[in-house]
């Protein structure tokens, strides 16, 4: 009798404890579409997450106010990946397996996207990412799509501009040692070589580094007239400052990572530097200005490249669902065949790999703001 009672006690106890872990199945509402968003919400680069969520939320608010997607309201579920792969994998697994989102937006960091792509692939969930590393769309994964052109395309356009418009001959390459930086600079290196203007030097640095004296001294010694830095905002800004401090006189050019946050941090040191981007709030194009105005009214700040990507992403999803419905397979197939769709950022034409086109802008920092100097359709 006592044994029976003890056993009952033990099992009841165990179930009571474990019932806390019970997750009630999430039904997919007939009234909502769940869209997952994973991005860098916390960390020193959290401005990125801020830009991304604001862009997405603005679009969601607009769409929901206008009646939603085919009458269904968008339920935007946001998780943090902190810019780290392990946190990202967990966050995405939660969105896909627990929240059961219909489509996933993000991540932004290639270093987070590449190792976590398999989650959406295995769950047959379309994934729209703003990541730039070319190899993300070279994995024969039919579920991955881009929100902007990949770094192979970007590098080609930027190198072309540097050689043709800026007439540069001696270029030093720098990159941050994460997936985005490594892939990006490899692409740039390739296009320089193809054009017979090989880089005079290639150095790298780690994410989180604060002092770049070693790299900068080597660059100065190489006699480079321009530095191409495939980096992220914080380090890129520190480098800009230290370049001044160490007496470097050449040009400073960057990949997409040299964004508004970079300009904010580097202040005077950013003057005269170039960056390549999918969007700039200073772009005079009326559609972009319209978006900028709406964003500014809503959030009291200027949108940046990341905001534009995810604003665009929501509208892209809306377009595809309206044309192809909520069946994931049909969604995916439709998107692969989407050509010449005029989005806010540019013209989207998807291919079988999930790449989306060639629109890109080159900007230059003048008087603390980015000015558009070149546009590629």
């Amino acid at each position: 009798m006592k044994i029976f009672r003890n056993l009952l006690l033990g099992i009841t106890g165990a179930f009571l404890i474990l019932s806390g872990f019970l997750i009630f199945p999430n039904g997919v509402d007939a009234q909502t579409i769940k869209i997952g968003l994973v991005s860098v919400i916390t960390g020193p680069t959290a401005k990125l997450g801020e830009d991304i969520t604001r862009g997405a939320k603005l679009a969601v608010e607009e769409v929901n106010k206008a009646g939603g997607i085919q009458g269904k309201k968008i339920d935007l579920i946001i998780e943090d990946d902190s810019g780290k792969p392990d946190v990202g994998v967990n966050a995405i697994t939660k969105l896909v397996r627990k929240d059961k989102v219909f489509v996933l937006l993000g991540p932004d960091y290639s270093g987070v996207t590449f190792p976590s792509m398999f989650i959406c692939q295995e769950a047959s969930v379309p994934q729209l990412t703003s990541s730039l590393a070319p190899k993300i769309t070279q994995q024969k994964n039919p579920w991955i799509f881009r929100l902007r052109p990949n770094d192979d395309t970007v590098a080609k356009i930027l190198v072309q501009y540097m050689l043709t418009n800026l007439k540069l001959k001696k270029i030093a390459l720098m990159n941050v040692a994460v997936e985005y930086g490594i892939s990006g600079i490899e692409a740039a290196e390739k296009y320089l070589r193809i054009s017979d203007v090989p880089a005079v030097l290639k150095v790298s640095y780690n994410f989180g580094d604060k002092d770049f004296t070693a790299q900068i001294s080597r660059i100065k010694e190489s006699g480079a007239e321009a530095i191409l830095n495939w980096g992220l905002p914080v380090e890129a800004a520190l480098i800009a400052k230290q370049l001044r401090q160490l007496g470097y006189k050449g040009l400073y050019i960057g990949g997409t990572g040299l964004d508004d946050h970079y300009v904010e941090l580097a202040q005077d040191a950013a003057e005269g530097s170039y960056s390549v981007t999918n969007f700039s709030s200073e772009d005079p194009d009326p559609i972009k200005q319209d978006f900028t105005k709406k964003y500014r009214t809503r959030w009291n700040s200027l949108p940046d490249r990341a905001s534009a990507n995810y604003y665009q992403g929501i509208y892209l999803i809306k377009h595809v669902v309206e044309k192809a419905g909520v069946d994931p397979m049909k969604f995916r197939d439709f998107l692969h065949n989407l050509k010449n769709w005029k989005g806010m950022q540019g013209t989207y034409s998807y291919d079988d790999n999930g790449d989306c086109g060639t629109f890109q802008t080159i900007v230059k920092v003048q008087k603390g703001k980015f000015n558009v100097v070149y546009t590629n359709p």
Partner: protein
Amino acid sequence: MFFQQLISGLAIGSIYGIVALGFTLIWNAARVVNFAQGEFSMVGGFLAYTFFVLLGIPYYGAFLFALLIAGAIGWIMDFLVIRPLRSADPLTVVITTLGVSIILANGAMFIWGTKAMAFPSVFGSNPVQLGKVMVIPENLWIIGFTVCLVAFFYVFFQKTKAGKAIRSVAQDKETASLMGINVNLMIGMTFAVAGALGAAAGVLLAPLFFVSTDIGLTLVLKAFIAAVLGGFGSLQGALLGGIILGVLETMGAFYISSTYKDVITFTVLIFLLIFSPTGLFKKPG
């Protein structure tokens, strides 16, 4: 260029030294390994940012306010958290200071957000000509401030009653209390001073490396290493250890590849700790 780099190294080394100083003060007074020391610097940076950049208070005022508030936080930390654990074993106290560092770091993130922010350089961060060499004025300010700080502490600990009281508490708590010294008050004051020191380092660091929430752990590690380098427990040693660390880091980057520089530093440190555990300098009697 060499001279400019040397000044740079001395500046960053001074910052490490100041953090190490606060760290060692606490160890001496309370035998506590304060893992939250780096967070005082982080908080100091953000406080100065709020006062100077957001509220427009002049630099020295902002600096002072940051020190005062950080000092208060240090005092509160001792009062609420360390005092109840006066007789607990070291590991318990370490975990507690870790808890405080988590609260400070995440509290700061909660208040100011997590993104890195620029802090204007009051003295100028671009090199200027000084005689035959180029120097960055910001670095001169950091070094100058540290020299004044050292002078101040010398006078404080050698000449004032409070300073001597703190020293006696550090040396022998029982005797000190028998002599009528309020041990708890002295330890609380030590924490306040260490908090202020940490904040000072953070404010000095801000124009160099931006204000961000992730510097805490790195700084306390450097402080730890600097303190041990100079002989754990020695105040002069902590400061000197920090300066040596800073100079080695900066000059090392200039002359050796940065890739293995840290590996070499830590390996040398391990050997030092095994064969000369009291550090490079002897602890003063």
